[in-house]
């Protein structure tokens, strides 16, 4: 009977280790937090070109992650990209109305993300508002093309 206790105990530890491992994969590796989705508010922004921005890309402010992109779709009215993002609740009512959103690149070839920077307007953005001042992604090919054509004209 002693042997069966060892079996039970080790199976129990095995299961526990599995669950802890999954927890590790969730918290440490995927960076999940226990925050509920209500702790955010949404903002919209239209960009002429989003480059390789994807849903779940980061939204940062002074380099600090403050939210994530939720959806990206084509705005059929203006034929540009409409990006919806979730921003931390703490910032609701603190971002000025003339906040700018620009699509930035981490490093030369890294992922693209949205950077926000506040302006000076006393009025602030509320849930569901749109950021009007936006800066599109820099597409490397276009940049190179410009340089090349500049060199050609010179």
């Amino acid at each position, binding site marked *: 009977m002693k042997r069966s206790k060892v079996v039970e105990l080790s*199976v129990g530890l*095995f299961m526990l*280790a*599995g669950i802890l491992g999954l927890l590790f994969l*969730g918290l440490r*590796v*995927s*960076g*999940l937090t226990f925050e509920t989705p209500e702790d955010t508010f949404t903002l919209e922004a239209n960009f002429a070109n989003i480059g390789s921005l994807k849903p779940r890309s980061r939204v940062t402010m002074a380099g600090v992650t403050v939210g994530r992109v939720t959806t990206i779709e084509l705005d059929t009215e203006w034929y540009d990209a409409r990006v919806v993002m979730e921003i931390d609740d703490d910032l609701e009512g603190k971002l000025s109305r003339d906040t700018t959103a620009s699509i930035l690149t981490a*490093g030369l070839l890294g992922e693209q993300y949205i950077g926000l920077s506040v302006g000076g307007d006393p009025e602030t953005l509320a849930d569901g508002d749109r950021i009007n001042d936006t800066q599109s992604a820099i597409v490397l090919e276009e940049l190179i093309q410009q340089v090349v054509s500049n060199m050609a004209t010179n």
Partner: protein
Amino acid sequence: MVHRIERLGRVGCTSMASLGRAGLFLARSAFGVPSREGWSLWLQQVYFVGVLSLAIVLVSGVFIGMVLALQGYTILIDFGAEQALGQMVALSLLRELAPVVTALLFAGRAGSALTAEIGLMKATEQLSSMEMIGVDPLRRIVAPRLWAGFVSLPLLTVGFSVVGIWGGYLVGVQWLGIFEGSYWSNMQASVVFLDDVGNGMVKSLVFACVVTWIAVFQGYDLVPTAEGISRATTRTVVYSSLAVLGLDFVLTALMFGGLS
């Protein structure tokens, strides 16, 4: 020529028949009413199939994580992107290597043992005598082993991923000197729990079903001689490895194929 077609037909018929037998076998054993002692029998099998495979799985996991980090580093440094090492290690482990390599190790370690064990029981008439005692060996012998396999392999896969990521950390951060913060934060920024960890788990669950099913069925269906057992054991490893690799492609195409 006619002869050849005839033979092809016969081979087709026998393989269809054995597939049918395998399907009935799975349905009857996995979804039958568990026997009264089902719980403790299952527990014992989780020990044999899962706990005893832990050592080989964890050791392989550490080494694969370390190799990944080393190889990844030499490639990424050319692009000046060695900060993305954590992301690379974690994604390749979670999506591909952990489910596949663990399933292959499992087939070799636990699958072949299951086949040999059940085959030996068949060869020594233990299964027959159990039937004559009025106990269904599908429920008493096969079902606990099937369910133990279904549960153990996903857990082993989690273990493999965790130690693999830790192995990558050892090499990348401790040895090659990548900044610790960027190892973890790059990982966290790119790994999506449901998409990456979740899909890896789904893969490993599918592999668990297939490998255990093949192993147990090969044991149950073998020719009850010494030669039959050794052949069936080989077949278990070959069939389940092929099934794992083939299914992995299909699953990857379904899960990640449409993403980018």
